[in-house]
Structure formats: C-alpha cells, structure tokens
C-alpha cells in the first residue's frame, strides 16, 4: 500500500518473454512490508511465474482482503487491476468478478487471519463452488498489522513472541480445501522458490478452484523459538512429497527424472505437469489418501509440502452454471433486453 513508485530504469538486456515483456513489467509498487517478510518472496514468485507463463499482465485480476498479505497485490503486476476488498470477503468479490468476466485470470491473495478466522466461511464456499481462480494464503500464523496476536492457523502449543502458549486447535486450510472439493491443492514455503514458482504456474493454468497454502514466516512477530511458522522450524520440518515442473503445451516434453519416478499430468489448457515423486507412495490424484497422509504427518509435527491433490478434469463454476462463452460484462441490450414484444406476451399472461 505504498505511495512510492518503483523507478522504471532497468538493464537494457533484461530477457523478454514470448510476449516481449521483461520481468520488470510484472512488478508493482515498492513493498512496505518488513524487511525479510516471507510475503515479499511470494510476490516475487508470483512475478516470476507470470513472466515465465507469458501471461499478459493486464489480463490478470488480483484481489485481496485486509491484512499484511492482502497489501501485497500492490507490489506485483502493476498494470493489472487490483481490488483490496474488506476483511475476510475477498472470495465473494472474486466470485462476482469471475462471473462478470470469465476471460480474465483471477488471483486471490489472502492471509491466515483473513481466510481462517473472519473469512473461513467465504474461503470454504468459494472453493466448494469451484470458482476458477488461484487462491493463495500467505500463512504466517499471526496477526501482523495489529502486532502479534495468534491467528486461527497457529498450531496448538505454539508460543507467541510474548511467551503465551496457544491453547486452541489450529485450522489446517489445506485439509479444509480438500474437504471442500478444491481441484488443485498445494502447500509450499515462501523460502523455497524452486518449489513455489512451478506450483503457482500450474495453479494459474488450472481451470477450477486452485488453492496454495504458503507458509510465510513473519519476521517481526512469529519467527522465534517455539513458533511453528518460523524460518528455522519450517526448514527443519518441511517434508516435500514431490517436485514439479510445468511445461506449457507448446513446448516439447522432456523428462529429467528416472522413469517410474515421474508422472506427467495434462491439464485443460494442454499444459503438462511433470511430477517428480519424493515420497514413494504419495498419490496426488487420491483426495482421501491425501487427507489421511496430511493428518498422519501433521501428528508428527511435519509440514507436508508440494502438489497435494490435482483433478485435471475439474469443472468450474461457469461450467456448472452453463453460462455463455462471451464474458457477461460484454453483453449489450441486444442480448440482454427481451424487448417490447416479449413484454406484451408477459402482460397477456398476467390478466
């Protein structure tokens, strides 16, 4: 939420993508978050993912709620329309925006306070409706802007900076997203760009409700010993079940991994996910298995990351509603207003 614009000077030889844009064309204003904030790494990953996917920046709509994480859409994709809505209600606004124009790409950015507390209901309902979007929660387990209160994703028994022990059960948004029918579910870590960027790319290419829970340490209020969302804790307890590359449909598929370890998955748009297994028996096409695995690992204090579930045949809300292919916001009186003759018939039926 800065008033500082970034200087537009850049190296003359910055690489351009297929659309002729450099990485700088996907940047936004200067971040006003604390130095070292995990959220800034996520913004950088979003920029990288959009650049690599050759997305026209203005065809992305970025929406957020209220909180530190919700400020970040100002810090990337400066030529896109953004909407910083009200606390916990980004999902409904995004749903409405998506209904109005199905041709844009929708990126919802939220935090753990925004999505797991005040907005838990809207989070759940937007996912169960299958809104075509990428919904990222930048999850630091703490209220940053109001200075250090526990959020609902804080693990039971974790310690606040002031030394208070959290006695409430933590909400696991990944499990909830799986239960609500999300068709793309992943967890990552802001400090692991190599894992995060391909996940964002794959999620942006997914048609349906894609959810990424991104653990993102709060350097100011939740990066101490006793926290389960600190850089140190997450690095020590991160268990990645797979690694992934996204190959756009126009590129030739090359397999880097040994046969048997890599599963290719084709999405709606023809892009192929090359999924390299790290956990031997983990199957990301099995929703129930994913839930069980997450629960068992969580009980051991581990943070499971990677692509956790994917349904490549997903349907989205527009498909369920049977809406026309043209964006609703482009329809004119010709398509929308039935006219005087139809009204005369209606009048006759009301006598």
């Amino acid at each position: 939420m800065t008033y500082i614009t970034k200087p537009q000077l850049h190296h003359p030889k910055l690489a351009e993508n297929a659309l002729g844009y450099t990485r700088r064309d996907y940047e936004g204003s200067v971040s006003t978050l604390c130095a070292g904030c995990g959220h800034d790494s996520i913004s950088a990953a979003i920029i990288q993912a959009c650049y690599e996917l050759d997305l026209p920046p203005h065809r992305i709509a970025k929406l957020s709620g209220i909180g530190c994480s919700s400020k970040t859409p100002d810090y990337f994709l400066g030529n896109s329309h953004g909407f910083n809505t009200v606390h916990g209600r980004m999902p409904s606004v995004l749903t409405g925006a998506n209904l109005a124009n199905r041709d844009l790409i929708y990126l919802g950015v939220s935090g753990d306070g925004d999505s797991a507390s005040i907005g838990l209901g809207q989070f759940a309902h937007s996912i169960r409706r299958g809104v075509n979007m990428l919904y990222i929660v930048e999850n630091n387990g703490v209220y940053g802007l109001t200075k250090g209160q526990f959020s609902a994703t804080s693990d039971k028994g974790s310690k606040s900076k002031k030394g208070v022990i959290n006695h409430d059960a933590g909400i696991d948004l990944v499990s909830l997203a799986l239960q609500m029918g999300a068709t793309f579910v992943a967890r990552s870590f802001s400090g692991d760009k190599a894992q995060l960027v391909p996940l964002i790319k794959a999620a942006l290419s997914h048609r349906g409700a894609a959810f990424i829970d991104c653990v993102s340490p709060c350097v100011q209020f939740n990066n101490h010993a006793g926290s389960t969302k600190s850089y140190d804790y997450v690095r020590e307890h991160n268990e990645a079940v797979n690694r992934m590359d996204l190959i756009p449909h126009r590129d030739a598929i090359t397999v880097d991994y040994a046969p048997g370890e890599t599963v290719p998955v084709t999405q709606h748009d023809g892009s192929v996910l090359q999924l390299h297994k790290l956990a031997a028996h983990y199957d990301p096409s099995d929703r129930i298995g994913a839930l069980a695995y997450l629960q068992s690992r969580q009980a051991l204090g581990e943070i499971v990351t990677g692509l956790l579930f994917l349904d490549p045949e997903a349907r989205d809300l527009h498909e369920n509603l049977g809406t026309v292919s043209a964006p609703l916001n482009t329809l004119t009186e010709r398509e929308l207003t039935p006219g005087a003759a139809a009204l005369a018939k209606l009048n006759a039926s009301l006598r």
Partner: protein
Amino acid sequence: MPLEALNDFVVKFANVNGSGSASTNGMFAKAILRMGVPVAARNIFPSNIQGLPTWFEVRITEAGHLGRRGGVDLMVAMNPQTWDRDVAEIEAGGYLFYDSTKPLPPSKFREDITVLGVPLTAMCNAAYQLPRERQLFKNIIYVGALAALLDIEIGVIETLLSEQFAGKERLIKANVAALHMGRDYVAEHLSPLRLRVRRADKVGDRIYVEGNAAAALGAVYGGATVCAWYPITPSTSLAEAFTGYCEDLRIEPRTDKARYAIVQAEDEIASIGIVIGAGWNGARAFTATSGPGISLMTEFIGLSYFAEIPAVIFDVQRGGPSTGMPTRTQQADLLAAAYSGHGDSKHPLLLPADPGECFEMGSLAFDLADRLQTTIFVMLDLDIGMNEWLTKPFEWDDSRKLDRGKVMTYDDLEAGRDFGRYLEVDGDGIPYRTYPGTHPTKGGYFTRGTSRNPYARYSEEGSVYVGNMERLLRKFDTARGLVPAPIRRDAKRATRDGVIFFGSSTPAVHEALDALEHRGLHLDALRVRAYPFPDEVFAFVAAHDRIFVIEQNRDGQLRTLLINEGDIDPSRLTAVLHYDGTPITARFISSAVEALMTDRRQVPEAAE
C-alpha cells in the same frame, strides 16, 4: 339491517396455514377480476409452514381503491383458533360464513350479523376418502358456495380451474364437481346475500402481478446478468422470479447457454460481495434481501460508496427490528438503507408504489448504478412484493439503450485521454472508470476502501481525503436530478395543508384524501419517489404550513430523512404512523388526519 353493497365490499378468509387456502382464495379474487371488477387482495400470513393462523383479504372495488379499506363485511371463518377475533372484526350488519358441521353455542355468534352455515367437513367426508383431498376440495367447495352467495359467475371460475390444471383433465373435472357441490348446497339451503358482484368493465388492460416478480422482470430488462442472494422472507420470490424469467428470456439461441449467472450465496455478506465484485468488473449485478440482510451488508455497502462501485439492492421490507415480524409489512428500513455504512455515507433510494413501478424502477436502478457508480436501493415492502396488485401493463421502449455510465475504453486510453479513477472531470462529481483487462499498459488501477488520491494512489493526506469526500457529495447532488421526481396531487381548493407519503401507502392515501375532501378537509399531496429528494420536495414543504407525513414505521423515518436533508423545522411535519405489521388502511389515514386537523391543541398557528 344487513349490509347491502354492489361491487364494493371486503371479504376476509380466516384459514389455517398449510391447508392450501392461499391458492384457492387467490382464485376467488381472480374470478372477480375476470368479471371486470377491480380487486385488491392481501395475504396476511405467519412465519410458519403449517398450523398457524393465516388470513386472506379480498377487497372488491369497482371504484378502483386498491389500498386496504379497513373493516370486514363478510368473514369466511375457517379457523377455529381465531374464531372469536374473526367474528368480532365483522362490521355491524355484516356476514359470517362458516363450516356448520359441528354445532356451536349461540354465544359464539353475534346478534347484529347474518350467519351462513355450510356443513363443509360433512360434505367432504361424504364425498372423499383421502385426508388431503378432503382438505383441498373443502376450499373449492366454499368458493362454489361463495360464488352462489355473491353472484360470481361460476363459468369464470371453471375457466380459471381449467387454466390452473391445464392438461390434467381428471383434476379439472374433480375440482369443477367440488365447485358445483358448494354452489348447489347454497341454491338448495340459502339465499344470495345483499353483497353482490356484477360484471363491469373497470379493469381495462391492467395486469395482476406481485411486486417481487415485477422487480425481477425489471432487472431482466435492466440488463442484470449477475444475481447473488440468500433466502429471506419476503424477498425470496424476487430472486426466484428472476431465475424463472431468465430461463425463459435469457437463453442464447443455438447454444442454449445462460446469459446470466445466479448464485445462492452462503449469506447476505457473500451476496453483496459477489454483486460488488461483478459490478467492479463491469457486469450489472444485484441482490434481493430484507432488513436483516441490509444489516449484514453494511460494510460492503460502505465500500461500494467509497470505492464507487455500482450495485443494486432490492430491499423488500418487513417488520423489524431484529427478526421482528418476518411475514408482516413495514416501511422501516429507510434510514438503515439511506445511511448504511460507517463513516459519512449515503445512498440513493427508489420508492416504488406498486408492481408497475417495481418494474420501471427495477430497470432504472441499473442505469443509475452505472451512471452514479454506487449502490442503488429499490425499496419494496412485503405488501407490494408478495401480494398480487392490479397495475398498469409493463411497457418498454425498444429504442432504449442501457446507460453504462462513464467508462473509458481501450480507444480512449490509446488516444491518450487522462485517466484518474477518482478524478473530477465534468463537474458532476462522477469520475471515469475502466473495466479490468481493458488495456495492456494504461487504465489499470488498484481499488481500495482506504483513502487515495484522484489517480487511485494510496494517500492519507487530509486535504486529499476531504477533496474526495466533497466530490462524493457533488455526485450525490447529481443523483438528485437523475432519480424519479415526486408526484404532486393538488386539492380541489387552495390549502396550506399537505400530506407526504410514499410506497405501498399510496392507494390508501388517495382514498383517504377523497374521504377527507368529502368532510371538507382539503390537503395537497406529494408522493415521494426517491432519495436524494429532488428540489420539488422541499418546495412543497415550503409551500405548506402543516404537513402530515404518512408512513408505515414507528419512528417516522421519512419524516426524519426530510428534516435532516432539508434542514426543516420538525414542528412543521406531523407524523401519521401505522406499524402493526398489517398494510395501512384508508380508514386509519382519514381518521388520524381528521383528528389531527380538527384538534385545535395540535394545530400550530397558520401563517397566512
């Protein structure tokens, strides 16, 4: 003396909810309408699916008084739970129709009314075996009996039955038989009443429709493509009607795809959130709700005001506060809607008086929302919304274009036009907007509910904030000239007395004004049709010494709004309030106004 009347009396049905009475009673009303005699029918129902008392009042009125009159001439008492109060409500000289299967002691009746017993239960038990049949046909039997008593043409009811059960010959035959059973019983045992219906030609080309359906059709014609809603009485049927009309009128030929999107949301907060998201992205969107929903939507409504996003809310008002009287009518959300939101905010309200205006204002609201880039409320109430009213036919001018307001296009941006999302350009307080995705490098902006400068950049600068808030006031002033003007009706004689009213009170007020004129009391009248109030409203106030503000709430909310917005001396506006949950009556208004006008103590010195 038994009452005598031709095409001018009130019949009230007292039933048990869930007995199928509402549709049968509705058919009774429609039969009279088909005979060319205007009717005004009102369903007074409980918050319940089965078992609680419900009433259906049919006013037969050749003179065309479509408001409630007050009083009952013929009571059709079918509910033992409410017998005593129903019998007590009958006018002296009136009539009581009841099921005489079980004998009742004389103390249950009145000396000054005519009692008409028909053994409905006994007749049904003899003719039908299934309990549900006994119940449903009982309703048709009493309609047949009433037709004979009141001279309603039986053939008209037979036609209605064949329309209702079109294609189901067996059902038509069975219903017609039940109808005749009632008619024949009366012919054999009773004689026609001195209340009579006679064919006339007073309905003309008017249509008979609920306000909720009319408003929904207005939304279709107004180009609404996104509807998000949460079920709440009395607004539910508006969203359901929109769904039905869209399925008929908004399907793309060849593909059979929908040119609309309707979401039943998880609550009212999500409903308005979806509407605002769609409005931000350039689609016309609305929600339908009632008072409790407005309370929940308040934060978003404030966002729509400050971030300047078009939205339309149909508020079908019911009795408040809190859950209040969910199935009873009031006009009690005026202040909550007009000033919804924290901080300084205000929103235009449209105030339809009948289903015809629900249609007109229902479509106009979308033009206004786009033009003014803000939330527009259409304030119905349960009386207009859920009752069928006789109203002028819907009209549409095929040359009419949707007014999408000030939107900068790709070509505008490409041509180098200066774009500032919150920049005053034309002196009317309305800035330009762009739809997301318009141009690769120009016209993008970040929408927020926090303060920002005319170019949409975050700012906490005091002067920047104040400048923006002042512009929003100018925009509201622009709205004053765009909303429907009030309608004035002058008394036959020059007078310094006046009445101001709005919405569903309208027909009862007109009838009351006629009655008052008969008693030598002359009042000019002004029907307010929108907020912000156009200048004519304050000119009317200035031109009268004593003004009665008639409305259906406890606190005189229109009066408060007038005083506040026009800086009017409160002593000049006298409240006339009816808020027991039933629709206001002409008798109430004329007697209240007469009492206030003739009570010297309450009359301020008239300044000549």
